[in-house]
């Protein structure tokens, strides 16, 4: 099996990581970089708990080989807050009760963040469409949608 040394920017930090060819980005984040905020819920691209930004686009980290992110930028939930200050989306999730068990939350936050970057004033329908790949079993999504709406208002 081939091994590869890759260079990748994760949450703004340059990382050089030695990875086997069959390692997924999810495994690399959790096992090589100890970034366990990105969750493993299905390893099949069905639940979205492992959503990260790859060059600014939300993807399932379980569906990407680590080797493929060589030379690219990855943002995880750990990269959303800056200087101890919650990102506006995180803040809205906290305030609106968008968080229950919290296991889908990191992926939800990334998808929501990406949506607002592309579409600062989404309709409720657009929010729901953007979050379709992120399953939540606790909230029924109502508070999550509200949180994204609130974040959109807060971003101005």
């Amino acid at each position, binding site marked *: 099996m081939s091994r590869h040394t890759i260079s990748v920017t994760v949450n703004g930090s340059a990382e050089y990581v030695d990875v086997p060819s069959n390692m997924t980005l999810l495994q690399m984040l959790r096992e090589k970089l100890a*970034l366990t905020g990105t969750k493993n819920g299905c390893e099949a691209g069905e639940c979205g*708990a492992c959503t990260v930004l790859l060059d600014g686009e939300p993807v399932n980290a379980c569906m990407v080989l680590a080797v493929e992110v060589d030379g690219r930028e990855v943002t995880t939930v750990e990269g959303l807050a800056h200087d101890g200050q919650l990102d506006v989306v995180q803040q809205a999730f*906290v305030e609106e*009760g968008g968080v*229950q068990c919290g*296991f889908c939350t990191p992926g939800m936050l990334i998808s929501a963040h990406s949506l607002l970057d592309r579409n600062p004033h989404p309709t409720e329908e657009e929010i729901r*469409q953007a979050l379709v790949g992120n*399953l939540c079993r606790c909230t029924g999504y*109502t508070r999550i949608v509200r949180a994204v709406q609130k974040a959109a208002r807060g971003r101005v």
Partner: protein
Amino acid sequence: MKYTAKPLPKVELPELRQVGKPLRRVDALGKTTGTTVYSGDFTMPNMLHAKVFRSREPSARIKRLDVSRARALPGVVCVLTAADLPDARLVTDMPGQTGQKRRAGSDAPVLASDVVRFAGEPIALIAAETLAVAEQALDLVEIEYEPLPGVFDPLAALQPGAPVVHEPDNVVARWKIRKGDVKAGFAVADVVVENTFRVPFIDHAYIEPESGVAWMDGQDVINIRVCTQVVEHFRSIARAVGVPHNKIHIQGTLLGGGFGGKEDITVEIFLALLAKHTRRPVRLEYTREESILAHSKRHPFIITHRTGVKRNGRITAAEIKMVSDSGAYLYLSPYVLLYATIAASGPYRVDHLKVDSVSAATNNPFTSAFRGFGAAQAAVAYEQQMDEIAKVLGLDPLEVRCVNYLKTGDRNATGQEIKSAVWLEEAATRALEALGEKTPAPSDAVKIGQGFASYLQSYGRITWFHDTSRAWVGLELDGSVVIRCGVPDLGAGQINSLCQIAAEVLGVGLDDVTIYSTDSALTPLAGTTTATRQLYMSGNAVFHAAGAVRESLLERASKHFEEPPDGLDLAEGRVFVKDDPEQSLPLSELAAMCAAGGLPLANLYLFKAPFTSTLDPEGLQGDVFPDFTFGAHAVEVAVDTETGEITLLKSVGCHDVGRAINPAAVVGQIQGGSAQGLGYALMEEVIVEEGIIRTPSLAEYLIPTAMDLPVTQAIILESGSGVGPFGAKGIGEPSLTPAAPAVANAVADALGVRIPDLPLTPDKVLAALDRAAGREAVGAAACETDDDGSEA
């Protein structure tokens, strides 16, 4: 039909400082920054990785099991089979709590030895240096099966001559309710309505699959970090592993959802065995597919209602039969069936009632707890039956219910007097009012329907289980507060509520409270996070423990201010004289005074639910539960009559929660619980064919996405009449229960024909319309009765 909310009885609830406020949850920050550590996030130095070898056959004799090649694989450290574990069983019973003698042998063995009874049954455990090696070793386990006849349908399992899953027969449990004189009740009925309803297997589908890490420490204690709803399983784990109770230490983590699926033991015994045998840390994490294969499912039920009614809708008698599929092993099937049996007639006064229920063993996946615990299945049936009764009588569904709703002081199915407020009509009319007028249909092919469901659901465990919870509350010298309580938090806000209660009682802010929870050795045992019991049980334990600390503080302050203790109060981290708030001290100074005087700054409180005795099994008459929650859910649907597709348009849940400790968390429960009920109604089904799961992953087992659910409006009513702290009732399970039957009723309203089996798939919608076009009633039979009650 336009509905108007029934005015609420006047209730004066005291204004509180912390309780009743939608405060930011104590666990929210860690969960949004990714810093909260879940059980799957733990690793240990020198850790091994485990895998479980499972049966592919649903019913077979193991002719040959050879793990020698797996053992020989470099990197494999340990392989265990049943041969290594003499008679280790996964006993889910608790001593002195069940009141029912369990049948020998029907508890699951930890590992199958000679026979496998369901596809997915564990057979061997592997621990290896890497996960890759452990997976390779799985492929090297050699097994030969001799297929045995299996039974895959609970009705077939109860027939003479059916293959027997556990000797002597497939009856796992039976319950019966005998109340009043059913024959006399039917004799005075004007009409008898009979229907049969079915509900499928469903999966909890928490986003966090089961996982854990175990290691042995210097005292030979096996420590297990795991996501579980029940840290008290340490006893069963100790028994299965063969060590004393005090050598198993569960360090529970915050859960990524539970819903009953992490109520039974999952990975714990496997981890403990491997840690004990290897004396190294071991990690085990299920894949999603293994999670679906390995943990319990919600019981499928077949429920038949035969109801006698007067023309005005009044129920004169009911005869209800229930059959549930227990799957291959016992687990909590008898209790799920008991809950279903007691809830069978719903929130209605039925003076003449006969319920017969039976749970059958099959070679299907085993079934156990799932939010709603049998009472949810019962509601799917009784609420559809109420709508069918209304239809037969030509009455409005609300009208039929109002005639029959229980009232405070009435007795339920087991003759237990309902002592708390019963705001059934208040809840139903509010839910319906909020639903509003029907949305106009966008085309002729689309029909709009509205429906609702009422319910009663117990909170707190069966009172003959003699349930207890403990909590320790203490004030630190700087005025900050510590709670120690073994409660597992599933994500619903269990620990937050306890913090809010302690903050209220001790007059501090929520940020001043820290809770240590979910540890079987270091936090006082609080019992299971199941049965909608934690707010009631541990909430009361915290309330009283904090109350004792408060009393001690006020007693000392009373001397300082020369005021009687009831002339003092605690707020904002200070003690003050009520009539002269300028006279005050920070809690830190008061704590220092207490400490100097050797006065207690902490209290360990043991809260006990009412203790009752088991009931006469011949009729089950007497008290069974501490109290009940009541409410309603209403929905509007659009049904495409040509494609069978159903779209949820509106959803409203209205529940009397007694007192909302944290209203934001209550709203979250109502919205989230009902979402599971909506999925139950429309799309969720673990499809099992000849014992094999055909929906093995989240690509086939569908749960609602953000596109499938509308906004659920949550209406909170507060009667203040519950037995929880500050008059709270439980809402965890009740939030789910009425949602599925509400959808079924809305779809029946849209189509004019009922689909008696969940889930309501497009296929079934078209089939039902076909049957209706053929002028055939679906599973329904109504008949006029003569005066003697015989069917005309």
